[in-house]
């Protein structure tokens, strides 16, 4: 008793300013909330010391800041990055130093780096189930819009491939520079082409500006109401829904976590949130995944009695962590998480109503290697969701 806990540094590398700051802030607060919680309990023989760097949305800052954390500092683990470009920037540093990045965001896939643990969804866990849901209900002829970088390009490319496989037709595809809010031309194109739905892969301020403008369009022409022609997304957050207010209502997104998730695991998490971060009202998958990352690292360290990244990863592969997302485990061959995507509809009181929750954990398939042979997957709703990449939650 009374013996001081060992102090263990953990790197926090999120942009809380810049074009995707709203997502970065979720990760930042998620990680810090978990650290506060872990440090208060007596469950661990160590206390976590957050070493914080903020690249402010500037891609060129990521590598040097990661180096400060891992090479010059004492952190073997970094929780951070939002865009794929920033993740690609830190990977060389991790490879040189043996550091490990816990990446808590959805991304387009096509990467399995040994120094990265991927906690967000990849394409088979976001755009594939989202289109599976939407194509059957709203029609096969969407408009695709996205921010002009790899996330927008690749998600839209995969969407186009799936839509064409479903005998649909992409009525238009447009990209907007990251952070740009000048989207009037998109609305005019949508008004003219009348797509069945709009796939919105815009990020941050561009996405908010677009949803507001689309709302105005729907006021003028009710055939653009969300019930008829919804905006669907893979990267909307609860905080954005609150900021958008009435403009968001009825539009759809997919995520493996929603704040409204009716489960004991989530109730536990929300109770802790109220205690350790009472100022935070809205949390999204970005928050929950960064929060879970810190918990999984801490559990791995406690179980292995050290901070060897390989041992921590193996612990996360061999053990279920029950956090906000429910049971969470990392797949052995890809270092990505098994995740159970759901469809949420933005609601008037904020947040999302979960309108589709198959409650099945999809094994990560970052190269979409198992999708082509499963054509039924896209054609007839859930019936195609078959083994071997499904694990039922017990």
């Amino acid at each position: 008793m009374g013996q001081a806990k060992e102090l263990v540094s953990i790197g926090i590398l999120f942009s809380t300013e810049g074009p995707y700051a709203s997502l970065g802030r979720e990760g930042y607060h998620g990680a810090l909330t978990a650290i506060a919680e872990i440090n208060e309990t007596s469950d661990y023989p160590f206390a976590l010391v957050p070493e914080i760097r903020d690249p402010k949305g500037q891609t060129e800052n990521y590598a040097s800041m990661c180096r400060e954390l891992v090479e010059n500092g004492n952190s073997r683990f970094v929780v951070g990055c939002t865009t794929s470009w920033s993740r690609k920037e830190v990977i060389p540093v991790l490879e040189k130093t043996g550091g490990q990045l816990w990446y808590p965001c959805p991304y387009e896939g096509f990467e399995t780096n040994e120094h990265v643990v991927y906690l967000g969804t990849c394409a088979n866990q976001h755009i594939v189930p989202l289109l599976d849901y939407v194509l059957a209900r709203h029609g096969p002829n969407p408009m695709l819009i996205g921010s002009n970088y790899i996330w927008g390009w690749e998600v839209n490319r995969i969407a186009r491939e799936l839509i064409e496989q479903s005998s649909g037709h992409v009525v238009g595809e447009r990209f907007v520079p990251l952070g740009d809010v000048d989207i009037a031309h998109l609305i005019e194109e949508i008004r003219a082409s009348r797509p069945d739905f709009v796939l919105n892969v815009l990020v941050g301020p561009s996405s908010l500006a677009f949803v507001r403008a689309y709302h105005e369009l729907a006021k003028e022409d009710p055939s653009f109401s969300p019930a008829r022609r919804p905006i669907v997304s893979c990267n909307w957050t609860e905080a954005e829904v609150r900021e958008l207010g009435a403009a968001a209502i009825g539009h759809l997104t997919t995520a493996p976590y929603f704040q409204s998730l009716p489960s004991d695991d989530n109730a536990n998490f929300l109770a802790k949130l109220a205690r350790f971060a009472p100022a935070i009202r809205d949390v999204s998958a970005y928050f929950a995944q960064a929060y879970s990352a810190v918990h999984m690292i801490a559990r791995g360290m406690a179980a292995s009695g050290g901070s060897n990244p390989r041992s921590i990863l193996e612990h996360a592969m061999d053990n279920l962590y029950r956090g906000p997302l429910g049971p969470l485990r990392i797949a052995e061959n890809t270092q990505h998480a098994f995740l159970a995507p759901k469809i949420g509809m933005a609601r008037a009181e904020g947040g999302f109503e979960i309108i589709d929750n198959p409650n099945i954990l999809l094994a990560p398939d970052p190269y979409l290697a198992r999708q082509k042979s499963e054509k039924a997957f896209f054609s007839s709703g859930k019936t195609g969701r078959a083994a071997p990449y499904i694990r039922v939650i017990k």
Partner: protein
Amino acid sequence: MSPHTPNYQSWNALILHRPHEIVDAVSRQLLHFGIRAQTSWPELPTDFDPMTVNIIFFDGDMGYDAQFPWPEAYAPVPMIALIGSEAPGRVAWAIKQSADAHLLKPIGSGGVYSAVMIATEAHKRRVALNTEMAQNQFRLAHRECLAKATAHLMVSRDMTENEAYQALRVMAMSAQMSIESMAARILEHSPDDLKFGAAKRNDRA
């Protein structure tokens, strides 16, 4: 037979990439075997001249369609893609820019030499294939013309098919032009091949 050691002395490379450690790593490696590098981003340098640049390295991650003035598959020099994202959309874009080889980011202290060698050879083959294809398309387009000119000679000079073709070949050689061009010239100067058709019918009559 052993291959020759390539000599890249006094070659000029153009690296189309934003300022980054990768650019420094590529430039450093290039210098080891005598290639000087110039950097530009996002556009080609205003004074870009394909006659003075021997090889181009380009960014597969942030590159975009209007970056190069030449049509797809017709890059005038060997092209090496610098690839970070392996998303199929980006890899396909690099292929569209006629990437002859690629290097995966991050780039350390090796890889550039073999990429230059592979790209140079692949580019040579690409140019040879394009040239051969253009020649074949030209021949195909002039096949009818060649047949008509041969037939014209057979009738007007009372030759067999072989004799007419040989005569055409000799004429083309002495005029230092392709046999197809000579055929076109003969038809130009003897435009009444319809008359020849009529003559043939008369013969039969």
